[in-house]
């Protein structure tokens, strides 16, 4: 109750003076502690995504956002509203994303963001389950004849500023005692343009991002991704500190997608399986035919059914957006289910 009244006080103050305040972002951020209520009142989820990285988040020819990260936003919207279209996508750059989340401009950031200690603890964010285990790599034109990142002495490197890759890059070159020239850029599209124009020799970002970028080139075969992976980049959606209920909702929506793949629940058979209780109690609890996990999250019984029906389970989302059948062509690798030797592992739904 103490917290609640404090909250109202801030809310009241906000309505009085909001416009005059240069720091209004912070005010709105603090005032949004009950995120789920705000989202329901607004009728849509504000979801921060990248400004455009094919396969992860990019608008298609009709302006409809699609991709691996976008699917997470859509699953959350579907879990809350039963309608995956109730999302407002907010494109953010590496530099603007954290401010957008901290200020309350977005409720959820699904923007291939690396989970790190300082972002979790010092920047006051809450990381959700990792949805893609990645690592930083280098892409370079084949014509330069470079086969190892250690031969990059003196190279000009395009790098998105405000990312962990920027710091990893500095560490890597320092550790190997070689020099480089960083070219700071804001977005993936800008990097692509600079790299193709030859304004930088090398482009470095997460290996998945490199594969996605290369897939959009005219001649993808002219570019190689060097074998060195210089960092661990567990990419995960994130929310603000301080609203655990909202964090739980997003966390278990992601887990629901992962668990659905494990139990063979797909976008095609989910409605059918949810129609009546089956023989596996775990699936029954997930799909709401037994118990009422949805109510504990403040959602309907069919929250997980809707989330899975939106774009399918984790495996389906992966295959449709970045999998081997797409131009990006990423193998599951570490991102396979734990039953297949990967790291995707959902805690029990119980």
């Amino acid at each position, binding site marked *: 109750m103490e917290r609640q009244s*404090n909250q109202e006080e*801030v809310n009241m*103050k906000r309505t009085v*003076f909001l416009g*005059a*305040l240069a*720091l209004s972002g*912070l*005010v709105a*951020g*603090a005032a949004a*502690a009950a995120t789920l209520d705000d989202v329901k009142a607004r009728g849509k989820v504000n979801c921060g995504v990248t400004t455009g990285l094919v396969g992860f988040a990019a608008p298609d020819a009709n302006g409809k956002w699609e991709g691996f990260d976008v699917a997470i936003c859509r699953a959350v919207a579907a879990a809350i509203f039963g309608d995956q279209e109730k999302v407002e996508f907010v494109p953010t750059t*590496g*530099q603007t994303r*954290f*401010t957008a989340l*901290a200020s309350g401009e977005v409720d959820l950031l699904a923007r291939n963001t690396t989970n790190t200690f*300082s*972002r979790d603890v*010092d*920047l*006051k964010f809450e990381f959700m389950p990792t949805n893609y285990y990645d690592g930083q790599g280098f892409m370079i034109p084949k014509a*330069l004849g470079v086969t190892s990142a250690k031969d*990059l*002495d*003196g*190279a*000009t490197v395009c790098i998105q*500023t*405000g990312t962990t890759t*920027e*710091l990893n*890059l*500095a*560490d890597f*070159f*320092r550790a190997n005692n070689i020099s*480089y*020239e*960083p*070219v*700071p*850029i*804001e977005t993936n599209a800008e990097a692509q*343009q*600079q790299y193709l*124009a*030859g*304004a*930088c*020799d090398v482009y470095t970002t997460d290996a998945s991002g490199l594969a996605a970028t290369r897939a959009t080139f005219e001649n993808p075969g002219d570019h190689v991704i060097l074998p060195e992976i210089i960092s661990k980049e567990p990419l995960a959606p994130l929310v603000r*500190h*301080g609203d655990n209920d909202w964090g739980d909702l997003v966390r278990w929506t992601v887990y629901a997608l992962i668990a659905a793949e494990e139990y063979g629940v797909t976008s095609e058979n989910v409605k059918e399986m949810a129609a009546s209780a089956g023989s596996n109690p775990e699936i029954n609890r997930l799909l709401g035919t037994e118990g009422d996990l949805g109510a504990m999250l403040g959602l309907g019984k069919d929250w997980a059914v809707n989330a899975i029906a939106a774009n399918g389970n984790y495996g389906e989302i992966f295959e449709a957006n970045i999998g081997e059948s797409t131009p990006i062509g990423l193998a599951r690798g570490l991102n396979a289910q734990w039953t297949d030797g990967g790291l995707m592992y959902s805690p029990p739904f119980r």
Partner: protein
Amino acid sequence: MSSATDAPRASFRLSQLIYDTRYRSITIQVIALILLIAAFWWLINNTVQNLAMLGKDFDFSFLGARAGYDINQMLIPYDNSMTHGRAALVGILNTLLVAFMGCVTATVIGVFVGVLRLSKNWVVSRLMAVYVEGFRNVPLLLWIVLIFALMTESTPQPRDFREGGSASLLFGDSVAITNRGVFIPMPTWGDGAAILGIVLVVSLIAAFLYRRYAKKVLFDTGRLLPMTWPALAIAIVPTVLVYLAFSFTTGGVRMQLMGAEATEGQSVAAYAEANGPLSVCMPEGTIKLNMQRMLRANDIRYTEKDFATEEGAVQAFRNGACNLVSVPAASVAAFTEGTDLAVAPLAETSPRGKPLEFEKPVLGGFNFEGGVQVRNSLIALWLALSLYTGAFIAEIVRAGILSVSKGQSEAAFALGLRPNRTMNLIILPQALRVIIPPLISQFLNLTKNSSLAIAVGYMDVRATLGGITINQTGRELEGMLLLGMFYLTLSLVISGAMNVYNSSTRLKER
């Protein structure tokens, strides 16, 4: 008279605060002040409260933490193990650099165009009008992005400069225009550079004093002494003489390359084959430059260890830090005797170097090496800021000139003054009074607009302190406050300095 003392003593009543015009204005001001303070208190309190709710504190200690990121353009030494404070300083210097270059260029362009726009030549004045209207009426950001895109898309890549490539260096292989920037020769100082510098400064002062003297003679006696050529000669001739003197004396001295465990007269190529990887101790300056040229001409791969002085390099060589060093040819014997190491002179020598030499950019593995790289981001920002602000300054200059009454120039012509003298002695001094105050705000605009560097990735203070540092540490409030304070201070300094100049050109009233 006595009635005055009988007047009732005015006793103060509270209602007077509102109804008495003597007090009312004070009352209103006090109330306004209280409201203002309350508003500020509310803002600050609200911020503090909300920061507390987010679990954030207000703390500037992040400035002392390790930055961890690299910056491409550094005017002072910096690497990623230094602090965020140092990174901010690097950014501040980059901001100052582009602001200074922009202000100077914009002023030159502005004065030039402003005068030409008043030209009687129809083509010239219309061309200038097109320039002014074109730049003044299109957003600055578009110009920055356009110039940057032109620089990156239409210029060759460094690898096009290789043999068989489509591009070649300009001005006797000394300037390379690439899509990563323009590489120009870097001045390198050698023996006698300090004396050369002192001579230059002294002769510049002498030239200035000569002009003052000529002006005094003109005003006192009406005798017109030649001004431009003598002043130019006083400024340049002594410096050239000193340069030539040093070039023919110390510049001719040869530096003998010495190798540890070498046989006397061995070539450096043979030495490299026999003794494995080469590391060379080099002092800063032209000695190093000439050694590099000599080693490159022999196609030798080596690692380089830099020292500030010759003694430092020799000492490090004696301690075994490297296996090659060079000493003046005359002192080879003393050098070999004074050490227990097996040291012998190799076949190669290199010149000691002139007081000032230029290091040309040379194509390396990925990029040009040596020389100064003027990055495209700097060029785009600098050109766009100068051309944009220059258009405004041109209009200010034109207005200033037009503000001087036509009678002034007619009177000057009647006295027989030629047009350029009329402009320099009659029109411009009067026009400056009108020009300078708005010029100050153009300088301020240009300085603040330099934060548009974000569009082209120029590493100014907004990009380091206000960009990467904020992003890595999550200290938005502190970072933005510091950034705001920096721009505020800079603007106040610029306008303070310009105001001093303004008061010196102002009409002196007695």
